[in-house]
């Protein structure tokens, strides 16, 4: 915004006390760059340590992002399938979503009425990926999701199961980041699986079973074990009762 407006000199003094321009605002309060209408939470730069270490422990930086405060709801997903008919249940390509796609919806355009503001589930990775793209966003990577919602100290609590579905990082405790008791898709959900899938069903990393205690960064983080184990059992076309998603985008 151009402040060098031609005004009478008398008023210039008054204008001199105007607040800084919007661009300068964003530089000092980065959180404002995330959209409150889209219910995003600003996640500052952070770190991620892969739960299963390779040769040595590594800590990776995670860039700041605008992460959806809550998983995508049935209502939001309904809008998406209205505008993207290829994702309606009766028309979906089977290779992109298995038979139980939107199994709890009454029909193509009728989610369960009592769950409109609840997370959408029975959606595949392909569907989630497409949804996020339609919003100008993407699925979070495992590193990003874990940085935001995989808090380890809480996981050492006595009942890991409640924590397995997420616990906000300490610096996000006061944000409206919500975890809704479902698993969530990530962009690279099978990154923990080293050897990839093979038709002989020998594809999962053998050390994910009994040997995993050695390779895990923290063998008392049972919540993380559950999360990583669950991710490694997924295929991109799976549509499960307690698996939903949220989107993220880089903070501008």
């Amino acid at each position, binding site marked *: 915004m151009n402040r060098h407006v031609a005004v009478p000199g008398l008023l210039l003094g008054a204008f001199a006390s105007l607040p800084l321009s919007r661009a300068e605002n964003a530089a000092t309060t980065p959180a404002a760059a995330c959209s409150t209408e889209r219910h995003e939470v600003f996640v500052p730069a952070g770190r991620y340590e892969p739960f299963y270490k390779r040769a040595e422990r590594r800590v990776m930086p995670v860039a700041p992002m605008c992460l959806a405060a809550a998983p995508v709801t049935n209502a939001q997903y309904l809008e998406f399938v209205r505008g993207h008919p290829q994702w309606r249940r009766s028309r979906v390509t089977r290779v992109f979503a298995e038979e139980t796609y939107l199994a709890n919806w009454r029909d193509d355009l009728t989610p369960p009425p009592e769950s409109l503001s609840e997370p959408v589930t029975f959606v595949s990775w392909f569907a989630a990926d497409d949804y996020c793209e339609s919003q100008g966003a993407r699925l979070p990577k495992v590193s990003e999701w874990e940085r935001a919602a995989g808090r380890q100290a809480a996981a050492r609590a006595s*009942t890991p199961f409640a924590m397995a579905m997420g616990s906000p990082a300490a610096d996000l405790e006061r944000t409206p980041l919500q975890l809704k008791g479902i698993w969530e898709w990530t962009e690279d959900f099978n990154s923990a699986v080293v050897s990839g899938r093979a038709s002989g069903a020998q594809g999962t990393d053998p050390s994910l*079973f009994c040997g995993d205690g050695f390779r895990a960064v923290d063998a008392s983080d*049972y919540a993380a074990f559950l999360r990583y184990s669950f991710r490694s059992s997924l295929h991109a076309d799976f549509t499960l009762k307690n698996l939903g998603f949220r989107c993220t985008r880089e903070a501008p």
Partner: protein
Amino acid sequence: MKPFPLLALASLCCIAPVHGASQSSTPVEEIRGEERAAMTSAPFVPPPITRRYATKVLLDLEVKEHTKQLADGVNYTYWTFGDDAPGKFIRIREGDLVQTRLSNHPDNTVSHNVDFHAATGPGGGGEASFVAPGHSATFTWRAMRPGLFLYHCVAAPAGLHLANGMYGLILVEPKQGLPKVDREFFIVQGEFYTDGAYGEPGDQHFDLNKAIHEEPEYVVFNGRVGALMGENALRAKTGESVRIYLGNAGPSLVSSFHIVGEIFDSVYGEGGTVANQHNVQTTIVPVGGSAMVEMVADVAGSYQLVDHSMFRAFNKGAMGALQIEGANRPELFSGRQAEEIFNPGTHLQRVAMVASTPPAPAAPAQKSAPGDRGHELYSTICTACHQPDGRGMQGTFPPLAQSDFLAKDVDAAIRVLIEGRQGPITVNGKAYDGAMPNFSLVDEDIAAVLSYVRRNFGNSGATVTPADVRRVRGLLAQASPPPEEQPQ
């Protein structure tokens, strides 16, 4: 000239032994036909295998995560193969080819798999069967070795899956079968790590801290407190041979399995195929392992099954029962033959009795004077079962606190202390079915301890005198003649 060496060479080749099949690979039997796997729920096992060939066995296991009762009033979300922990007992034959389909119910929350200790192959099937909710996976394995084996989930974190109940037993009979017995049962010992203390009612959850420190609240047979007690006790008749297939799913504690009053004629140590020890009182069952014990039911009566680590039996639920019915064998075991006063005229010195530990907030303070004989007796004899605060143990030992049994009929209470008590009893609306020993107390002591109990633990009742006890003894003597005169 030239052909000769060639001929010689050729004959050498023919004479020389063929360096062919490796001696180290196990030969496999030919498979004939196919059948569904024989499986039964605890504590019973399928009948012995009769076929003399290896077959293809079709095995379907479904994993369920659901809430069940761990103890009276205590709920826990079990993860089970089939409906219960332990999963069904599977009985197959050496050489069988087992086509296994593992299905993960769509309502389940986590991924599961199965590791058969009887299978030889990576993960015992763990990788091949790893499957998300709403899906199933199939793989096939050959039962190359006979024995009694555990099967269990080994998805990460494996300890949690075991601690939630995902285990069972599979018996691979040797080709020639096992010696015939009259009765067969199976028992799997396992632990539960709940956030609440033993017996605390309501919904309980897995406690990671207790698990990592190997301090379970529950150590139980066949998945819950009382699974082998009361009407669920194992039963046999005198003269019958009994084999018990034992498993220990842990996940932490080795079991010292003992049947009170019995001796195992044979033990197949660690669930192998050789009866490698005889005349054993207590056998070890390793975690993730098994054992088989055989005995003959000689003497009728009630026999407690325990993990001989005694606080597990008394305080954590590692107790079951075997009822042996039949004629008495007084030439083997007489039962009580005589009872008399014993007063040697000497006196014994003891450390001064300390007041019992402060009771739970709900229980009223115990009223006892220094040197109170009733209090002394209670602390010495009664607390082991009825607990210092008189609350007993859920499903096993009735409470004395605010007991309707004590309030109703003082003579019945005196009788219990004179004779001991066996069989069903209902106290404060709950049924119990156990055995209380006869402590052979003299009348003065019975009066003292009963008076003590009746004026404490929230009870209210008049003092019992030695004369009351003598009166009840008299009534009992009239009702049945003294032991010497009974036909034996």
